[in-house]
């Protein structure tokens, strides 16, 4: 979050960390962010921490968002944090959503994840939170779009953590 105003829409990388294949929620959130005028780079499934940090850096995003339904979020975020720090992305807004038990929220906040949107979160609350917390001057734009980066994205209010 810098003071430098930047033209254009808020840019979000929406990542699916690890091997979790449940992307319904991620895609729903991607659509909500696009509908709110944001630009979404959806990573697709099976992303490593390195890949998410690289995409975030290359795409010069304002927001780094993860969607995790399979329980490995803490392990993944502990690996992602130093990579984001090293890439100078510690001033971006970090979010995580999905099947994130309450007992893990403090640890995730301590790692730098400012927004935690567990199952049950409302789409409008996610977009409002992003607007309130990205202060780069970016705002809603007419040029909403979504760029696949080769892989899937965020959290659903309706999915669950059992992998049938």
């Amino acid at each position, binding site marked *: 979050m810098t003071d430098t105003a930047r033209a254009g829409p808020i840019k979000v990388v929406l990542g699916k960390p*690890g*091997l*979790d*294949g*449940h*992307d*319904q929620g991620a*895609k*729903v959130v*991607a*659509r*909500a962010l*696009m509908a709110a005028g944001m630009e979404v780079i*959806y990573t*697709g*499934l*099976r992303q*490593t921490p390195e890949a998410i940090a690289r995409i975030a850096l290359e795409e010069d995003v304002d927001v780094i968002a993860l969607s995790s339904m*399979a*329980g*490995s979020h803490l*392990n*993944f975020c502990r690996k992602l944090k130093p990579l984001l720090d090293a890439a100078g992305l510690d001033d971006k807004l970090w979010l995580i959503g999905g*099947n994130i*038990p*309450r*007992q893990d929220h403090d640890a995730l906040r301590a790692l730098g994840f400012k927004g935690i949107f*567990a*199952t*049950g979160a*409302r*789409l*409008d609350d996610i977009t409002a939170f992003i607007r309130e917390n990205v202060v780069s001057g970016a705002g809603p734009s007419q040029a909403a779009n*979504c760029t*696949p980066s*080769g*892989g*899937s994205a965020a959290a*659903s*209010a*309706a*999915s*669950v*953590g*059992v*992998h*049938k």
Partner: protein
Amino acid sequence: MNDRLPADAAPVVNESGIPIQPLYTEADLKASGGTAMLGQPGEYPFTRGIHSLMYRKQPWTMRQYAGFGNAADTNARFQYLIANGQTGLNVAFDLPTQCGLDSDAPLADGEVGRVGMAIDTLRDFEIAFEGIDLDRITVSLTINGAAAILIAMYLAMAERRGFDVRTLRGTAQNDILKEFIGRGTWIFPVLPSLRLVGDTIEYCAAHAPKYSPVSVCGYHIRESGANPAQEMAYAFCIARAYADEVLRRGLPIDEFAGRLSFNFNIFGNLFEQVAKFRAGRALWAKIVHDQYGATKPGSMWMRMIAGGGGSGLTFEQPELNIVRGAYYALISALSGAQTMALCCYDEAYTIPSEHAQRISLRTMQLLIEEMGLCDTVDPLGGSYYVETLTNQMRAEMERIIADVDARGGIVGLVADGSVQAQVSAQAYARQRDIEAGRYRKVGVNCYRVDEEDPKVEFHPYDEADAAAQIARLAEVRRTRDNAAVARALDAVRHAAVAGANTMPAIVAAVKTYASVGEITAALTEVHGRYREPVKF
């Protein structure tokens, strides 16, 4: 008859888009096509059930989804469920296994044994099923991308335990096309993946003819955003794609169609689900009979598992999920399901506890023992409403299938991401409807309460389990005949390059204790890896 709805009353339309009337009569049933497709239970087109006596002869199989940690942990849970009256097993694998990775692969870090049991080699399968009578307890493997390997391991394990593979029953999910739509445990590109499914069907038809190598899943397509009619129509399109792949190899339809099975979702309007299943049974029978020329009744049976979960359950007021589960079981029973894997109330939070699994098991036992659900076949048959809706649902499914065919068929629509984009757009619209209160979910957008932390017992994840699993894999690698493994993996590569059926080579490889990751890597060298199309 003088009651009138207010002029501004909103029309009632079910999720599949069919308008619902306040009353159905004989005239409505006639207008929808009458009873031409009804028949009798056990007779074509099987609307009323695939068997004449259904549950009167044998209740549905109870097969709860279970598996976590390592093979020994999972074996203990299996034994617990069997001791409590469960009649089948439905195996959960961890994500590395499902994605064809060994427990020591870098991408597996943090995921070993987390959402299911870790399996690296045949050694793990030997431990997982120790002491379980595989002739009495049928086992369903929830495995897709790596299904060929895990089916091979299951058959090899059973054979070594002394069971006759020729009479062994059981099921593998092995529905890769739906993995590309939702669930996401794909490995290889679409066409080689389809060929692998063909390999398993062809191999089992010859060597394990009682085994069901594929369970085609509408379930996950519905979870990804499809409506009930689409769920079933897309599943049938996918089942036809597998049948076409096997027919192309020269196997007659009656040699394998009887071993295809289905897995469907169950949440939503009770009558719509019952009509969906009854309609689906008749439509699948008609497809296999008319389009494929099958003559054996068993080839035309839409055998199915149902049981709910996912989108139906809520994070809010989780104890309400016990009640939802009871209704799901009731719907399954009223619909003539062969097997239930009833969801557990804590699923929105964690891997189900023993307690939660026992409640679900007891829910099914209540229906059998106390509620009379096994007494009479197709108890809703003959209802003007249910029969009319069954006709209408069948017509809607036929319309969707014709539309898929007109657009070039399901394989192309999955490969280019069209189906994914369609269901994802519907999931988004549904989420907006939920948040706006247009689609009611009790506890979510109505009848909310200020909840304290719900009293859910979280399944513990032990990092030491993953370390032990990796150590066991290392031990197997150290003690097996590695020259034999290398030769077996070469044979897998050669079969794949030659376009031959890879199953004999895969079965031979697992018997050398080649790992899931090693066999997957051999196939990936030939087939490459899937690249996900992302369409919005």
